[in-house]
């Protein structure tokens, strides 16, 4: 599943952007070092292949519905982790820009979820050791299936984590996990099975292709550890900077005001995700803003005092409410009017 811009908070989006940018830069350097210029068209065309592969549907046994493969694991096996990560990134860029799958801000999350786990965890830690030198068919199949399952499960957990941390959706963590994990288990099994069959098919048809496609050395533990450390640092840094920014921005301002006034708002959404999140955020103190700044209707400089007692919402004050409603409607009307105007102009032209 793709994360969407609309589900993200800037802090979460930015953090994953930073992590992804770091990973891409690292991969680009790696790929350029071993620059085998044959890989340039290979990566591009394999990226296009992923789309073509998604045109080929299969019936999922027992359900009657149909699906297609995602292709991440296949790319990792064909290209090696760094080149595969770049290819997955490019596939997701195209999806974000053209198919409205995800979005620009969510791109960081999506590349991370769908690229990082298969390429840098599942492939080197599961597929490689299991498949070995690629002579044994059973081991290839087992490796591909296990790696695909684990990669997708991690990706699904990441989606849940990102959504929950962003706090836009009210879906409770557990419910969300329960919905995502079993589905992705099934998807992973199918993905792995198809990946394994395709790899075996290619291996039988043209053994030399796989050998030369994998080409470069399998990643050793060290560079990955380095990459992980670098990413973690980047993420913590951006997360910190972003949340600082966020907390000095308007909503953050309100938040500090509320802090000064006491934490009564905090008590309100005690149940469900917000209680949990709030607690969680207090503990990690990284993304303090978004879970409990409520009330954008409270304009800057507004001085209307809060009424005490939950449920507290700043704009319960009727005057503010009406003004907000009137202003909102006017803006909306303006927007619609503008749209109609352009429409008419085009019709004339």
């Amino acid at each position, binding site marked *: 599943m793709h994360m*969407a811009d609309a589900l993200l908070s800037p802090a979460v989006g930015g953090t994953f952007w930073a992590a992804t940018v770091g990973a891409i830069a690292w991969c680009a350097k790696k790929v350029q070092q071993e620059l085998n210029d044959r890989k340039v068209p290979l990566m591009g065309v394999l990226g296009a292949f992923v789309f073509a592969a998604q045109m080929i549907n299969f019936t999922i046994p027992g359900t009657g519905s149909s699906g297609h493969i995602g292709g991440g694991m296949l790319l990792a096996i064909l290209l090696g982790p760094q080149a595969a990560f770049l290819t997955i990134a490019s596939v997701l860029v195209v999806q974000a820009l053209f198919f409205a799958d995800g979005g620009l801000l969510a791109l960081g999350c999506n590349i991370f979820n769908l690229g990082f786990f298969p390429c840098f965890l599942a492939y080197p830690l599961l597929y490689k050791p299991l498949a070995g030198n690629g002579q044994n068919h059973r081991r290839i199949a087992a490796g591909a299936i296990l790696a695909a399952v684990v990669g997708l499960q991690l990706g699904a957990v990441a989606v849940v984590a990102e959504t929950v941390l962003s706090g836009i959706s009210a879906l409770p963590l557990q419910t969300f996990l329960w919905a995502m994990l079993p589905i992705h288990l099934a998807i992973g099994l199918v993905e792995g099975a198809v990946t394994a069959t395709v790899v075996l098919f290619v291996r039988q048809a043209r053994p030399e292709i796989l050998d030369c496609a994998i080409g470069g050395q399998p990643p050793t533990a060290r560079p990955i550890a380095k990459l992980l450390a670098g990413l973690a640092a980047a993420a913590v840094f951006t997360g910190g900077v972003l949340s600082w920014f966020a907390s000095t921005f308007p909503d953050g301002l309100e938040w500090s005001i509320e802090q000064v006034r006491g934490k009564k708002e905090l008590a309100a959404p005690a149940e469900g995700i917000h209680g949990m999140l709030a607690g969680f955020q207090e503990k990690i103190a990284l993304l303090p803003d978004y879970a409990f700044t409520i009330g954008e209707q409270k304009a800057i400089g507004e001085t209307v005092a809060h009424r005490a007692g939950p449920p507290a919402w700043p704009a319960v004050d009727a005057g503010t409410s009406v003004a907000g409603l009137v202003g909102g409607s006017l*803006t909306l009307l303006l927007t619609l009017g503008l749209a109609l105007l352009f429409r008419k102009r085009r019709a004339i032209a």
Partner: protein
Amino acid sequence: MSTIESAFIDLQRLDRLAACDSAVHRLDPRVKVLITLAFLVCVVSFDKYAIAGLLPFALFLTLVIGLSGIPSGFVLNRVLLAAPLALLIGLFNPVYDHQPLMRFGTLVIAGGWLSLLSLVLRFCLTVGAVLALIATTGFNAVCRALEQLGMPTVLAVQLLLLYRYLFVLVEEGLRLNRARVLRSFQGRGLGIRACSFLLGSLLLRTLDRSQRIHLAMRCRGFDGTIHTRNPLRLNGRDVLTLTIVLAALLAMRVFDGPMLLGRFVTGLMA
């Protein structure tokens, strides 16, 4: 499959739109990318119940789309197509969030509904903004802009090739699939096994093709980098537009326009 196919049709349509001409089209792609990013950050930085604050951004987007002459029906269509996911996730908000947040007389509106509405709104805005970017700039120009903004060249070249061969390979995939469907009666033959072989042969063809492309590139002196002729150049108009628009976006984010407007109007009426 039909959705992917229709996505490809839209893709060609986007390409055609990007070839049109308007003030927005003529802006430097980097400027447009930066503005889009700023727009997105502003929109998602509103808190989860924000509605009125988002409306000026809708106004802005409408203005841009109108100025660039993109058919609004097309944008709406695309946004609606992509909407179900946001709705699905958002629909849980009213279920889990009962916090009463707004009261008009006896009518009490729970936070979940507000946040659902807000989510849908920000969904439309984010999807719409990206669509507007692509439809006024074109994929290749966006890639070039991203490259000049610091995207690694390897990735840029990759995107270029991916986009070029998307059309060729999807066509190939469609033909393969069509040939299989013709011999698959009552859905038999569409199972995982046949699909894997199909994917396998598509993959073989793809690999062969990449070898041929590589040969063709090397025959024309390819050395690992793709040179382009006209590097982008910023002109005064671009810089000015960028400054003004960024300032406007910031202002829209900081000041609650609709509220001020509402105050003003209700103040007049009072």
